[in-house]
């Protein structure tokens, strides 16, 4: 695997939109060609060469290309968005839409990310070694399909509206979350190691949420149905199984109603 290293030369005055910084776009290009790729800075279209020092070499395909981004990326949006293969490592905190619509490959952020990251993610592995903002792995506005595949792992806390309209995949949050986790969820699995604020699994149709910590207020639409012993992300423990959201529609399978499950660690 060949590596291209981008080092930020100057922090953008507004916010720089870099959805072209992915292994898919970089694959098979020379450093000069990569430097000529454009982004958006307001209505201006600067080249990557204006903002980054670019070294290394790209692979022939996306799967053979690794991108390392260094420097302060807090004002850069869309890093790793729509990537389908290869690897990206960002050694900084970054702004919105990082890893959004990601389909494959591995994206690691060694810092915090802002809102809308991993939006409608469909595959691959997205690791955030920091905290995440709101709408992590959620659906784009007006869409009814949020994260549908892949693995999204956050080391720290996440904000509100995490995993809204999630339909598949797995999300693991090491810390706490704010309100509205897994709202409108229709599949997939969320593992929350820390505490949740309120409104967990509101309007949830299908899917599983595992909570290791506490929930401030349980929604009235959840009902405990028993206890189960489970192994979740390498931890064996006893969980109380709640079904819900009983206020929401639920599909039927072989004559049985399929409910969502909220497992609370005892």
């Amino acid at each position, binding site marked *: 695997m060949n590596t291209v290293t981008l080092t930020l030369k100057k922090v953008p005055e*507004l*916010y720089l939109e870099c959805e072209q910084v992915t292994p898919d776009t970089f694959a098979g290009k020379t450093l000069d060609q990569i430097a000529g790729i454009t982004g*958006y*800075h*307001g*209505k*201006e279209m600067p080249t990557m060469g204006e903002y980054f020092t670019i070294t290394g070499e790209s692979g022939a395909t996306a799967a053979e290309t690794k991108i390392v981004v260094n420097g302060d990326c807090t004002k850069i949006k869309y890093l790793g968005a729509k990537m389908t293969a290869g690897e990206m490592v960002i050694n900084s905190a970054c702004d*919105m839409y990082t890893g959004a619509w990601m389909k494959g490959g591995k994206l690691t952020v060694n810092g915090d990310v802002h*809102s*809308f990251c991993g939006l409608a993610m469909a595959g691959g592995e997205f690791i955030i070694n920091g905290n995440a903002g*709101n*709408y992590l792995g959620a659906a784009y*506005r*007006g869409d*009814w399909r949020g994260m549908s595949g892949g693995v999204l792992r956050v080391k720290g806390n996440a904000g509100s509206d995490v995993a809204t*309209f999630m339909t598949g995949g797995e999300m693991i949050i090491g810390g706490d979350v704010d*309100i*509205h986790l897994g*709202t*409108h969820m229709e599949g997939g699995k969320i593992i929350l190691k820390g505490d949740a604020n*309120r*409104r967990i699994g*509101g*309007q949830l149709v299908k899917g599983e949420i595992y909570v290791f910590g506490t929930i401030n*207020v349980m*929604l*009235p*639409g959840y*009902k405990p149905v028993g206890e189960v012993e489970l192994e979740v992300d390498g931890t064996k423990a006893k969980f109380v199984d709640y079904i819900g*959201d*009983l*206020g*929401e529609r639920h599909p039927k399978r072989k004559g049985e109603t399929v409910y969502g499950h909220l497992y609370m660690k005892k």
Partner: protein
Amino acid sequence: MPKEVTDVICPFCGTLCDDIVITVSDDNKTILGVKNACAIGAEKFNHQREPGRVTRPRMRQADGTFKEVSYDEAIDWTAKMLVKSRKTLMYGWASTSCQAMSIGHEIAEKTGAIVDNCATVCHGSSLIAIEDVGVPSCTLGEVKNRADRVIFWGCNPAHAHPRHMSRYSIFPRGFFTVKGHKGRKIYCVDCRYTDTAKCADEFIQVQQGFDYELLNAFRTAARGEALPDTVGGVPREKIYEIVEDLKQARFGVIFFGMGLTHSMGRNHNIDIAINLTRDMNDYTKFAIMAMRGHWNVTGSGQVLGWQYGFPYAVDLSRRDQARHQTGETTSVDLLNRSEVEACFYIATDPGAHFPVDAMISSSRKPTVTIDPHINCTTEISDLHIPVALVGVEVGGCAYRMDNVPIETRKVVEPPEGVLTDEELLTKISKRVDELIAGGGT
């Protein structure tokens, strides 16, 4: 001799009352009296004649004072600011006509700006919910003629939409509602005992921030499932009782306001209220409606929706595509994050409504405000351009809160030499064209 102009549309709130009678002086310049309007609506007409109105643009000087300039100078300054700025916030639009908005959006497209309207700090969260789950709604005429269960949730029309209750929702006798108030059951759900609650048959006091939980409980009860003893301070028995009563309705409607859109969860509160409405349609006819504030904020959503597909916070900086993301392209976020370089405010007063931090950020950027009056925003602007009062001194299309278009009427002449929004924006658009043709970006 003074004359009366009838069937005037009131340009104050989203109710757009269409039965106002205005007495006008025989020279067509002064409003002498207003009939039928509420106190706020009457004031909107009456202050047309108040002394001290600004009739020429004012430019900020180095010493902080304003100096009167010509419209041409003001138009040139505005056009140059728009062309130079890499990202401009064009916010407001809620108190102007749809025709003026359309011209404004053309300017935004040419200069790569972001168009946002007052929904951003008002019913924007309702619009997000509607984007997510749709909305089963109706017109206010249907409410008047059919509704026998009316729920006011987190709204207080007695103060914000003073004639809403008498024209549509509580008191009027309609085709199928011949008993008026007596034939309707009115619920008010709020965390405070408001003046609207005084008009209701039943007041349900919900603990602040527990609207989502209570709506969730209503939906759960509607499906016959078990509930905890109390939800948000409301006893379980009460919830079952109300839900059963709502199922018995011939036509029910939920009106909601800032109590839902700006308490914890925001769009999710509306989302679940819409879903409750949908659930109720399994038993009877039910509708839900946002109590829109500014008289033509609905119109701004309509025009933006028709032109770009999004009702507010439309980012046109890429010119070939319109983008919309609440939290990113919304005014307060743009200002707090200093994501824009210049501000263009029209027909609203963000200075009075935005968070202080956002306005501090705004005050550091080149700012133009187009407004008939001196307000909080004009005082932190570099340029204030006065215009004619839409709905009083010039007509134009507006949309009522139920998305019904109503053509507003011109009642009196504007002060001499004062341009209308349409005239001013057309001139700015023309100047922008000239600058771009001359090598601007």
